């Protein structure tokens, strides 16, 4: 009798935030005239700048509080615009101009900014109508046309009228019957005036659902921790910020979505002065083209070094990582909370030359974003990518969540800090069977995190999961054990460690740890399934049947669970039950080879 030995492992990937799709490109260059003595007019001089950099948010239905589409609109906010552009508060664009161009760059030049002030001083002349460029057109509906699938959050969230910023998460349960490829997802966060940003994150194991008080209620939290399969190759950013114009994922880089996967929308909301409700929607666009290129997300971080004394104005945290493979850098996402001040990301090339990948000299969490390079940045093997983040925990930092300042350490709450830099990279070399460059990169970064954080649960867990997937069972057990010692009794790591022992054919240890996992979380499909298999392999079929029955009840559409339950019944001598479950497995997956073979063996005359 054949017995399936598929072992499921959940890998933890600590997700702070994810990046988003490319926003629209506004490449309408504004001609800056010689402002010496010439009178500045709205139609000739300002409208091109306003239409390009203000109007994408300042139009009806968008995030900004008023429109800036006409001479009258701009005139009625003229001094404010002159003031806020001069202070570089508007338009909101954090990066300094640098060597690598970014999509949707909203940076204004000093000359452009000077025009607004001079226009006010000149008396706000409108100018000749012939000079006015065409008004920008904005699509108020779905940006790429009607989506293939529209999902609305199960329930709305009520934002109080006042108080500090709110972080709320909505889970979208995607009703898929089979694996689909996604070329774009439009995030419609609801009333946009209230939303600073929103990140959509794939949750392949429904791990976020455990945080909901009731199904569909959503849950609070600034940072998300998502469990996922150990080698999820899809490192995509789906990020919304005011003014975002949706662009599909790059060619050949569709996102895989499997039945049972959830999409979790992490939103940053700001009270408006009156109670408001928000109920986001997402529109999903499928493609028939499976991905052939798999970008991945590399995270630099050094949260362990975040211990910022009260009053410290210039606290430095750094991290650096040597790339074992050549990559193309597609996008970059820096992340800190309210004390971040100066965020620098650099690359030291093997030849010694240092390139600035991103520099934000005045960090503002409210305008955080994923920045996508107009042209991917090529980083050869051996390049050292680094982050240097400076924090201001003094009274001078207006955004300081503590008054008076307090000692601040790393954590997930808004009053804690973070030092993260996410790089979306595409490995440049061709995967060979033995050397998948994605795995090489992921394992290297996992080792880097263990070196940085020898007492960090997730670092050990992630490294262990990668080693396990590469067949390095002994090493993976070592790191799972470290993870378990850091989080005793954790159901996820008990399951993973049990499955590693299973792979090492140490069935008593496997059963011990898998039993611990199901005891903590009886509704954990993976560990019930794995424990059933472990018992079956140990010849303890009644126990195997007990746990596989629970697994089938938890996931009634899982063909593997049905097939194994059938096999266990057969081994236990209950042919009728065995045949019923094997048939059910074949209903769910007619190509299920082992179910078919076992059924044939049982029904052979």
């Amino acid at each position, binding site marked *: 009798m054949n017995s399936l030995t598929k072992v499921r492992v959940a890998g933890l990937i600590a997700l702070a935030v994810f990046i988003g799709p490319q926003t629209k490109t506004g490449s309408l260059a504004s001609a800056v005239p010689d402002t010496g003595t010439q009178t500045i007019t709205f139609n000739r001089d300002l409208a091109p700048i306003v239409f390009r950099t203000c109007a994408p948010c300042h139009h009806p239905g968008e995030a900004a509080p008023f429109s800036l589409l006409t001479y009258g609109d701009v005139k*009625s906010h*003229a*001094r404010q615009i002159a003031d806020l552009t001069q202070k570089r*508060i508007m338009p909101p664009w954090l990066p300094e101009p640098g060597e690598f161009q970014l999509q949707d760059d909203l940076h204004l030049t000093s000359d452009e900014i000077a025009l607004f002030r001079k226009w006010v001083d000149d008396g706000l002349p409108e100018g000749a109508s012939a000079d006015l460029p065409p008004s920008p057109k904005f699509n108020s509906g779905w940006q790429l046309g009607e989506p293939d699938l529209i999902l609305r959050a199960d329930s709305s969230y009520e934002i109080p009228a006042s108080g500090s910023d709110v972080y709320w998460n909505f889970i979208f349960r995607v009703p898929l019957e089979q694996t689909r490829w996604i070329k774009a997802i439009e995030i419609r966060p609801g009333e946009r005036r209230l939303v600073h940003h929103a990140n959509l994150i794939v949750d392949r194991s429904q791990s976020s659902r455990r945080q909901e008080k009731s199904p569909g209620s959503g849950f609070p939290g600034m940072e998300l921790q998502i469990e996922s399969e150990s080698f999820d190759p899809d490192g995509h950013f789906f990020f919304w910020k005011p003014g975002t114009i949706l662009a599909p994922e790059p060619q050949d880089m569709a996102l895989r979505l499997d039945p049972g996967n959830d999409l979790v929308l992490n939103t940053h909301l700001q009270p408006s*002065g009156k109670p408001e409700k928000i109920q986001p929607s997402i529109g999903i666009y499928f493609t028939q083209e499976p991905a052939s290129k798999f970008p991945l997300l590399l995270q630099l971080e050094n949260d362990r070094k975040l211990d910022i004394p009260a009053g410290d104005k210039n606290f430095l945290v750094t991290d650096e990582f040597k790339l074992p493979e050549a990559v193309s850098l597609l996008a970059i996402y820096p992340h800190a909370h309210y004390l971040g001040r100066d965020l620098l990301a650099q690359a030291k090339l093997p030849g010694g030359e240092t390139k600035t990948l991103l520099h934000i000299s005045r960090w503002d969490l409210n305008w955080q974003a994923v920045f996508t390079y107009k042209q991917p940045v090529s980083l050869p093997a051996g390049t050292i990518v680094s982050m240097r983040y400076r924090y201001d925990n003094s009274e001078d930092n*207006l955004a300081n969540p503590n008054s008076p300042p307090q000692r601040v350490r790393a954590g997930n709450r808004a009053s804690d800090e973070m030092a993260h830099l996410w790089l979306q990279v595409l490995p440049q070399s061709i995967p060979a069977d033995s050397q998948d460059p994605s795995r090489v990169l992921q394992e290297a970064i996992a080792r880097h995190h263990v070196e940085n954080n020898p007492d960090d649960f997730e670092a050990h867990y992630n490294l262990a999961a990668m080693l396990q997937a590469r067949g390095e069972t002994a090493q993976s057990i070592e790191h799972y054990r470290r993870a378990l010692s850091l989080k005793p009794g954790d159901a996820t790591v008990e399951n993973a460690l049990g499955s590693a022992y299973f792979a090492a054919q140490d069935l008593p240890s496997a059963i011990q740890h898998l039993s611990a996992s199901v005891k903590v979380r009886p509704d954990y499909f993976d560990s019930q399934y794995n424990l059933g298999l472990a018992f079956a392999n140990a010849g303890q079929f009644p126990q195997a049947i007990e746990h596989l029955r629970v697994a089938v009840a938890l996931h009634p559409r899982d063909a593997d669970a049905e097939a194994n339950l059938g096999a266990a019944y057969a081994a236990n001598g209950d042919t009728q039950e065995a045949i019923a479950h094997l048939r059910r497995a074949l209903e769910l997956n007619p190509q299920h080879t082992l179910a078919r073979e076992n059924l044939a063996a049982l029904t052979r005359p």
Partner: protein
Amino acid sequence: MRSLLSHRLLLLPTLLILGAFLFGAGNCVYAQSPLDLNGKSADPLAAPVGKPVVLVFVRTDCPISNRYAPLLQKLHSAYSAKANFWLVYPDKHISSQQIRDHLRQFGYTLGALRDPAHVLVKRSSVSITPEAAVFDVHGKLVYHGRIDNWYEDAGRSRPAATTHELQSVLDAVIAGKPAPLLTAPAVGCYISDLE
């Protein structure tokens, strides 16, 4: 210290010219005096009622003044026995109905006035929404400026205010003491952009 009388003397000719100009341009005629939401002249400073008067200048489309709504409502509730609170809308393009909608949406129970000719704006020496002006029991302007220091600039705010100027001025004036400060810079939208 400014005297209210001199403001009136200086202002009247300007306002007459403004009214005539607008009439000549074919626009609506804007009354010189502030108006209540029924369109009747209403001067919150005309007849001293023995209480200090607080005017808070707001704008329906100014996000910062909107975010202050819960606090303003709270201050009004706390001080209503001891001071008269008014919201003043200086945008001449906003109708009484739009103001009523705005009050309802933001849960305001304060009295509201329109100030299309900026009479109260000038008497209060304010330039921003939101900005507060406090007049003592004699109708003398004793403070104009920010409500508190929540915002340092548009787009740059503290998680919560650490100084509470309007409240400390009100406490002093109600106690018959001089205001602890005459002015503090308000942050928000320029009223002059509405002219």
